[in-house]
């Protein structure tokens, strides 16, 4: 250990700043470098310090210890967001009961029922620009498609998408980077107002609980008790925050890869049967939510690292996804990989991503319908692309093709 390397509790200290925007793919390079320094690090970049679990084996272990590492904190980069999220911040039995109500809505069986709508809207959007020979994948497709599908899942008007996106983006831009709580509060206020109106409407005119999400929440009973209205509102806000940006971001990374790797593109374009595995491998290789935050709830020695009650923890879902101890040739796109299912892009344990099946469904359909119409394309810019820090996102991806 060199004289200027410091340690906390035996763990190396790093100051890697994961909140800042960077040239595309720099964040995953940093994640890999930090992972190889040690299995557990102490991050002392500006803001609240946090422990970092960098490797797959320990990330799985930590995510399966919800009583020790709780989701009262959901992102180590902004440990105190100033508002409650449900089901994110809910623990224990109460959390299980809430997920019981929600899981059914987002289970594969429920998502399959949406397929005709998802496919139709996906095709409409693509055919809107296919003849132009160029588009911005983000502005022209990835912005609207997942947003509208998410609203449709909740039985809310798709036309509300644009304004909802704006406020979700304000929220996440602040929350991903430990930004001003005033921004988080401002965005929450608008989103709460939107859902208050929708809830008032369902209270006055209940809809079918089998097809209307808000009616479903209002009519759910746990031990005979209804969900308080404020909690219904909080669940709606929480799901909006989780669902709008993530799939949009995944589309950006997928199409960037395919635009810049012609062999992979040709393989996928010619073989829709491969798409589900390819999407899973993309999720592994380009994880959007690269860390799950946790609150350390009791003093614990975790693999030699003395964590204290009240400490903040980063579970490295992103760095785990390219851990060479788990995945051979971890930085290579290999859709035939046998253990791709072990990736942690959707998290792990009781708080694993509720929307995973919807996300997969949207991504598979998008890849298939795009390549059926636009099998060959390339980046339409030499300008360096920027990825947002905190929770990955490409703001723009110009593509072009021949007609």
């Amino acid at each position, binding site marked *: 250990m060199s004289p200027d390397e410091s340690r906390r509790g035996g763990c190396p200290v790093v100051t890697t700043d994961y909140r800042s925007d960077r040239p595309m793919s720099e964040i995953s390079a940093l994640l890999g470098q930090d992972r190889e320094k040690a299995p557990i690090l102490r991050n002392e970049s500006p803001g609240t310090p946090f422990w970092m679990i960098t490797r797959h084996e320990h990330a*799985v272990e930590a995510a399966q210890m919800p009583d020790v590492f709780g989701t009262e904190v959901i992102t180590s980069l902004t440990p105190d967001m100033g508002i409650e999220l449900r089901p994110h911040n809910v623990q224990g039995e109460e959390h299980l009961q809430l997920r019981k109500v929600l899981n*059914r809505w987002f*289970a594969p069986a*429920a998502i399959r029922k949406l397929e005709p709508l998802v496919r139709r809207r996906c095709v409409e959007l693509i055919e809107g620009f296919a003849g132009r020979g160029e588009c911005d994948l983000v502005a022209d497709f990835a912005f609207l498609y997942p947003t509208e599908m998410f609203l449709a899942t909740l039985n809310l008007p798709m036309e509300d998408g644009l304004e909802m996106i704006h406020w979700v983006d304000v929220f996440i831009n602040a929350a991903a980077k430990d930004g001003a709580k005033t921004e988080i509060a401002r965005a929450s206020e608008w989103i709460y107002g939107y859902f208050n109106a929708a809830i008032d409407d369902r209270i006055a005119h209940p809809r079918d609980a089998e097809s209307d999400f808000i009616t479903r929440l209002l009519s759910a009973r746990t031990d005979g008790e209804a969900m308080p209205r404020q909690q219904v509102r909080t669940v709606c806000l929480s799901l909006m925050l989780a669902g709008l940006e993530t799939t949009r971001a995944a589309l950006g990374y997928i199409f960037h890869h395919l635009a810049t790797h012609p062999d992979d593109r040709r393989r996928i374009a010619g073989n829709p049967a491969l798409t589900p595995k390819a999407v899973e491998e993309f999720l592994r290789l380009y994880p959007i939510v690269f860390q799950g935050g946790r609150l350390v709830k009791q003093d614990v020695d975790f693999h030699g690292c003395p964590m204290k009650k009240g400490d903040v923890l980063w579970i490295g879902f992103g760095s785990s996804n390219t851990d060479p101890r788990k995945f051979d040739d971890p930085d290579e796109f290999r859709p035939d990989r046998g253990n791709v*299912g*072990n990736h942690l892009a959707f998290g792990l344990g009781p708080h694993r991503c509720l929307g995973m099946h919807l996300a997969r469904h949207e991504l598979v359909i998008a890849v298939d319908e795009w390549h059926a119409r636009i099998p060959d394309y390339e980046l339409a810019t030499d300008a360096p692309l920027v990825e947002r820090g905190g929770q990955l996102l490409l703001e723009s991806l110009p593509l072009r093709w021949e007609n």
Partner: protein
Amino acid sequence: MHRIAVDGGRCMGHGMCYSLAPHVLEDDDEGYVSLRDDSKVIPDDVLAEAEDARESCPEGAITITAEP
């Protein structure tokens, strides 16, 4: 013959297993594998598929043991 078992405490409904092994496993309407917290005997001709399912589970919820 072999027995495939799913640890109900670990299964979180990721869905990798029943997607990969449709001849062995299926989903319930919450998205968990229907064999959650249960086990069953499987014939040798689906063992390879079952082993893929076991490997695919990120939670490590699936075990396969020899059934005498």
